[in-house]
Every structure is written in C-alpha cells, then in structure tokens.
C-alpha cells in the first residue's frame, strides 16, 4: 500500500478510493482550466474543494461526473479505470453531481422530476404511481418533499432537495455539490450541511465545492485547495483555520476583502433615490413586489439582502426603468423614473448582475461598449453620425483611467477577463455626472483582486456623494459595504438594520422569513437594531 492512501481517510469504512482522479488536464482554448491534477476521494468523507472563482473546481468536478471530457488524465472508481462518454456513464458507476444552476424541469412535478431517466419506473406510469415512488425516495433518504407540487413553484432550497434526491436515488456513492449554499439562507445552509454529514456517515462520499472558508471548516473532513487550475494542497480539517486556508487560496492574504472598509460620514444627507409603495409582477404575471418603499441618501450605501428570487430582480428593473411597475413610484433626485432613458438622465448608474449578458456586448470592440451611455449626444455623435475618432479617444482615456489590461480599444470585449470587463462596465457607468448607483451582485464570479477593485470603486462613489443601492445575494459582502441594510422577503421589505454587521444572525433569519415566526417587524426594532424607515 502506497503511503498516499494512509493520509486522510478517517471514517475507517474503507480504504478504497471512491473516486480517484489522475493527471487530469482540461484546456479551454489558451486557458488551462485544470492543470495536471491528482486527487482521490474516500467513501464516507465530506471533502471540500476550495478555491476562488476561476480556480478550476467546477471544471474538475464536471470532468469527474462526465459533463466534460478531459484532454488528458484517468478516472478510477473503486479500483477500476473508467471512461465517461456522458453523465449517464458516470451515474452508472455511482458518481452524481448537483450543479449550481439546478437542472430540473420547472413544468414537471417533483415526482416527475425524480422519475426522469430512472430505470425503476414502470414503462406505463401514472402520476399516482410516480408520487408514491417519490415519497418512498424522500423517506429513504430522510429529505421530505411535496411530490405533487410543480417544481417551478418551489423555493430554491426545496429545488435543491429535489435535485439531491434525484441524484441519490440513482444509487450515487459519490455526490458532488457545486456551491450548494450560494442560494440558501444561513439556516437552510446549516440544515444542508447536517444532511451531508449524515450521508457521509452512511458511507457516501460527499464532494463539496465552495469558496467560503468558514463553511468549509464547519462541514469538511478534508479540504483540497485549488489555485489557478492546479491542486495546491490537500489537508485534513483538524488544525486548519481561516487564516491558514486563505493563505493557501490566495497568493497574498492582504488581498482579502476585509481590506475595504466604510469611512464614516458625518455630514447631512438628503434623499436621492426614493422608492414608494412599488407593486409589480414578474414575467409570468405573478406578484413580485408587494408594496416596497425605501430611500437611499447621498453618501450612503443601502444594501438589499434576500434569498434569490424574492423580488430583487424586479426591484432592480423597476428602479432602472427596465420594467413598468403596476403601481408606486421611483424618483431619483426628484425626477420620476419612467423608462431607462429617464433613469439615466436623472444620473443613475447601473451595474447589472450579468455583465456580459446585460451590460456589455461581447462580440463588439471596447470602444463601442465604452460609449453605450454617451453615444446619443455630442461630442461622440454629431448630426446623427458617430465620430469614431472621438469615441475611440474617449474609450482609450476611459481604459487608461480604469486601468484596463489593454489600451487597444479595438479589442473585442469577449476577450477581456471577467475582472477587466467589470472594470470597463463600472468605469463607463460611473463616468460623468451621476447621483445614484444600482449594483447587483457586482463581484459575482470575480477573483478576489478584481472583486476588491469593484468594491473599492463602489465605496469611492459613495464617498464622492453618490447614493449606492447594493442588491446582493452575498450577505457578507452586503454587511461589509453597507451603511444600512434592508431585508427583502417575498416582495416585501421585512426589516431594516443600521448596525447590520452585529446582527448577522437576525438578518439571516429574516431572509428565510424568520420575522414571521419570531416577532412582528414592529416589535423587532428594539432588540434587533432595526430602525424605522423615517429618519
């Protein structure tokens, strides 16, 4: 027995590697996403795969579960080498993966989703039969679900349970979860981690992808750290702490986002963004906002937190003029927002969540993207004609000011890294006479350095006097950056906190609807630090 196998396994159920990845290499064009990684996972362990965005964690696991084919490398399962043509082949040897974006059919019931591709369903089925089967599966794995509900109507946490159940019900012995807690409330996350530990105790190998240090420390038996496509180290949890792990994750610990901080502001503030009693429905016609009111003042960051899908998207769209509210008003600096142009005219900068999808046009050069906010007027346009020279000069100047990796403004935006694309977007949105900003998950998918740059830019904007509305699913980010925090739940603002950082637990509870069971919003003021809307 080679010394390698001695390390790590502690459950004692088996010394065989449940999954052994050897020499794994995966390239995407010029980028090597996974670079010669060797890593083995044991049955009965919770193994965390830690690394920042773009470190190659998800790619490596997509190789292991048959979603991608490696350029080089071998996959061994239970002592045999296997090859995967598709996820089907991986399922056949007991490897299943739950992706960050759920792979469920919204138009199907829970029971139907559990039956997709399953061989144990009889060829001639009925919904009664499927529901019974789903209940049995739920019981077997101790995760209750409502079999007859349409998946599209479930909460994110419930969808995740369905997805995990579907994977487990196929006889999965290696369960891979990609950032499973990213969309959950703190309470749901704890429940999930509890479940995972139980599964591991019964002999399942759990691989848990995450970039959150604390969470990894609380759930994992062993931790593997990836950095820029390479496996950096594999360590047992004992003896690790946040500092030692972050030293493994990052080249330079000082890059961590604790380095940005609010500077106190003592001057008088006035209301800049005033949102009054917004009611609006989503694309399907269901109620999304049910009477939302708040204000954002100058020199202030207001954080909006909530589990994804509680009306954040509609709120963003109404404030920026992309969506018409059913009732209620949005004013920016006193001017009502009717459409995108009036919002822009009132001095609103917008940093949308999906920068390449909504903010930038990847197949077009930097200069055309740089002028998307000011192309309508002189000096860029004169007499209806775009003056390319002026536009290029403007773009070059902007690239210089935001320190883009290239000064060649003819480069296509799709060739920029995520960090540089975000720099361009933020620079463009902040350039000019602005009074307010709406930023949605502005650091999502960025590495730590780029994320810090973006956070710094947001705080600089605040210090220049802008009113900043930060809508984010990342609770820690919101707590770090915000002067005030409001919690959105099912289309309503259910709580407001001024000294938010010291009320992390309460906010977490509110995100999951905890205000309903705990105390009424009115009485929560005194003990939770919540304040009234009015000053």
């Amino acid at each position: 027995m080679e010394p390698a196998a001695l390390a790590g396994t502690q459950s004692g159920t088996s010394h065989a590697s449940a999954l052994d990845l050897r020499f794994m290499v995966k390239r995407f064009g010029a980028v090597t996403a996974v670079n010669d990684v060797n890593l083995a996972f044991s049955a009965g362990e919770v193994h965390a795969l830690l690394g920042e965005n773009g470190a190659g964690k998800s790619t490596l696991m997509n190789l292991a579960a048959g979603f991608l084919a490696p350029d080089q490398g071998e996959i061994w399962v239970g002592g045999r080498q296997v090859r995967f043509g598709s996820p089907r082949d991986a399922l056949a040897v007991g490897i299943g993966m739950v992706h960050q974006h759920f792979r469920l059919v919204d138009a199907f019931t829970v029971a139907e989703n559990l039956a997709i591709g399953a061989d144990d369903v009889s060829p001639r089925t009925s919904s009664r039969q499927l529901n019974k089967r789903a209940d049995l599966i739920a019981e077997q794995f101790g995760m209750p679900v409502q079999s007859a509900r349409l998946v599209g109507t479930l909460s994110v946490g419930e969808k995740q349970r369905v997805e995990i159940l579907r994977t487990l019900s196929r006889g999965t012995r290696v369960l891979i979860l990609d950032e499973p807690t990213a969309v959950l409330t703190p309470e749901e996350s704890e429940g999930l981690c509890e479940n995972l530990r139980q599964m591991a105790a019964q002999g399942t190998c759990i691989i848990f992808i995450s970039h959150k240090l604390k969470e990894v420390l609380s759930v994992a038996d062993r931790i593997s750290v990836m950095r820029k496509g390479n496996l950096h180290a594999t360590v047992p949890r004992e003896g690790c702490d946040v500092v030692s792990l972050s030293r493994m994750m990052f080249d330079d610990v000082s890059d961590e986002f604790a380095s940005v901080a609010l500077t106190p502001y003592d001057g008088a503030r006035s209301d800049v963004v005033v949102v009054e009693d917004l009611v609006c429905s989503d694309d399907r016609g269901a109620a999304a906002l049910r009477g939302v009111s708040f204000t954002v003042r100058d020199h202030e960051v207001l954080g909006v937190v909530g589990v994804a899908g509680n009306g954040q998207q509609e709120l963003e769209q109404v404030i920026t003029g992309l969506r018409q509210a059913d009732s209620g008003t949005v004013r920016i600096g006193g001017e009502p927002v009717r459409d995108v142009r009036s919002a822009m005219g009132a001095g609103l900068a917008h940093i949308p969540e999906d920068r390449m999808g909504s903010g930038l046009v990847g197949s077009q050069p930097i200069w055309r993207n740089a002028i998307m906010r000011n192309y309508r007027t002189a000096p860029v346009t004169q007499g209806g004609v775009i003056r390319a020279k002026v536009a290029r000069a403007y773009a070059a100047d902007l690239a210089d000011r935001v320190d883009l990796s290239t000064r060649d403004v003819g480069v296509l935006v799709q060739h920029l890294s995520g960090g540089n694309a975000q720099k361009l977007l933020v620079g463009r949105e902040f350039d000019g006479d602005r009074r307010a900003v709406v930023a949605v998950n502005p650091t999502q998918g960025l590495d730590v350095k780029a994320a810090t740059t973006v956070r710094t830019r947001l705080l600089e904007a605040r210090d220049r006097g802008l009113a900043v509305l930060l809508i984010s699913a990342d609770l820690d980010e919101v707590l770090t950056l915000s002067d005030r925090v409001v919690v959105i739940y099912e289309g309503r603002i259910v709580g407001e906190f001024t000294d938010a950082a010291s009320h992390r637990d309460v906010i977490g509870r509110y995100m999951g609807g905890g205000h309903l069971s705990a105390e009424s919003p009115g009485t929560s003021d005194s003990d939770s630090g919540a304040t009234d809307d009015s000053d």
Partner: protein
Amino acid sequence: MADGIVASAVATAIGGSTAILLAATGELLVEKVGVYNIALEGVMLVGALSGLIADVNTGSWVIGLLVGGLFGALFALCFGLITVVLRTDMIVVGVALIFVALGITDVVGSKYVGVSVPDPIPKLPIPGLSSLPFFGSAIFSQSLITYLAAALPFGVAFLLSRTRHGLNMRALGENPHAADTAGIPVVGWRLFYVAVGGAFGGIGGAVLTLGIIGAWITNVTAGQGWIAFAIVFFSGWRPLGVLLGAYFFGALSVLGTVGQVEGWDLPSEVFTVLPYVGTVAVMIIRAWSQRRRGGISWPAALGLPFYRG
C-alpha cells in the same frame, strides 16, 4: 343535390387532411423533444416523389408509403445531423434543405410527370358505419391510411402523457440539461425523433402523390409542409389539437368547392387563401390569449441548441 355536395366535401376534407395530419403529428413528436424541423416541406416533397417512384416500380401502394417514409426519415436525419449534432441554426438549415429537396425532386421527378400511379391507395369503406345516414359514407369510406392517421394523435397522446418514455421525451424538450444530468442521451433521442417525424412527413408526402392527388407534379406539396408546421404551433403542442387543426384546415381548403357549387358570390382565390390566412389568424389569436392568461405552452427548450457543461 346540395347535401351530396356537402357530404363529398366532408369526405374530401377528411381524406385531404391526411398528409398534413401525418406530417404535423410527426412534427409534434420532434418539437416535444426540443427540435423544430422547419424543413418539413422538403421532407414531404422527398417522401412524395420517392413513394411515387416506388409505387410505379413495384406496383404496391404499401411499398410506396414505406419507401416514402424511409426517404423522409433519411432526409430529416440529414437535418438532424446538421442541426442537432452540429448545433447549427435550424431555420437556415431548414430553408437550405427545402431548396435541396425542391431542386432534386424537380430534376429527378421530371421523368415521372404525367405518369399515372399503377396502384393508388384504395378506399376502405367500413361495413355498416359507411352506410350510416348523413355523413356516414363521407367519414367511413376513407383509405386505411386516413383511419390510421386519425388514430395516430391518440397514440401519441398516450405515449407522451402516460408512459415513462413520454416523460423522458418531454424532459428533453423542456430542459435537456435536466435530462442529460439524469442520464438520458439527449442528442441520440433528438436524432431518433427527428427521423421518426421525418418518416411521418415522408409518408404524408407519399399519401399526396399516391392518394390525394394521384400523380407527381413539381412542388406537389405547395406549402402543405409549412401548414403542418404551423398546425403544431396552433395546437398548443397537444396531439388532439393537431388532429383538430388538420381537419380544420382540410375543411377550409374544400370550402371553395362547396362555395362554387352553392353559388356563393366570391372569387375562388378567397378560398385558396383561407388555410394560410386562417393559420396566421389563429397563431395570433393563440398568442394573444396566451399573453393574457400568462405562461407558455411550448416546450421550454424548443429550438435551443444543447451544449453540455
């Protein structure tokens, strides 16, 4: 007798809808797994000519239909390989293959223009039912293939809603990533159903040349493939909607004959355009009512290329 005219019009409407009904039912299967074969018009043309050639050479309408189905499936498979496997634009490739079918069937078919079909599809009156009063003989004196085509949507409805395989099929069209993650071979099944839909389309085309028209003429389908394609939209992706839609358009297309005999004071072109105008109108009305009700009824991943990972 006016009644006799109406009865024969009903008979023509039902019989004349067979080709469209077969093609549309096949297309429904294709769209349920997430692909739309816009080259259906070309598939029908290929089926129409190959079926006719087979009948002329073998003297058997059964072989004619089978060959029409086979070549329809092969032609559709070309579409599938290019679009499903190579993830190219379905509209571009569909239009291209219609061109190819139009050109090739014209060149090859020029030898068969004016050739009479030795063994046309025979009528098969059902004893008893066909002698019922009113429309008995109109409805129950059709060819075997017309009865089968009418039964087909019921079979498809059963397959889609009551079987394990139907559930997997619908998953392919709703969210191929879900199906893929659950171990269903997405590309394989999509190709299979493109071929199946092509077979139905090809048989539909052969029904045109061997039954309804009884000869080969250049561009014999004259837009029937497109109408079949539109009927699937019109049906709200429901098999029984396809059945109704096909008969509705069959009825529209024989209105002209009825009108002439009954002496309606309208130019015959009004009746020529009814199926086309009707399709456009119904599509708009459907979309409008759906917009009001909210929600969509088409397979959510219809027409989107599937990339894993």
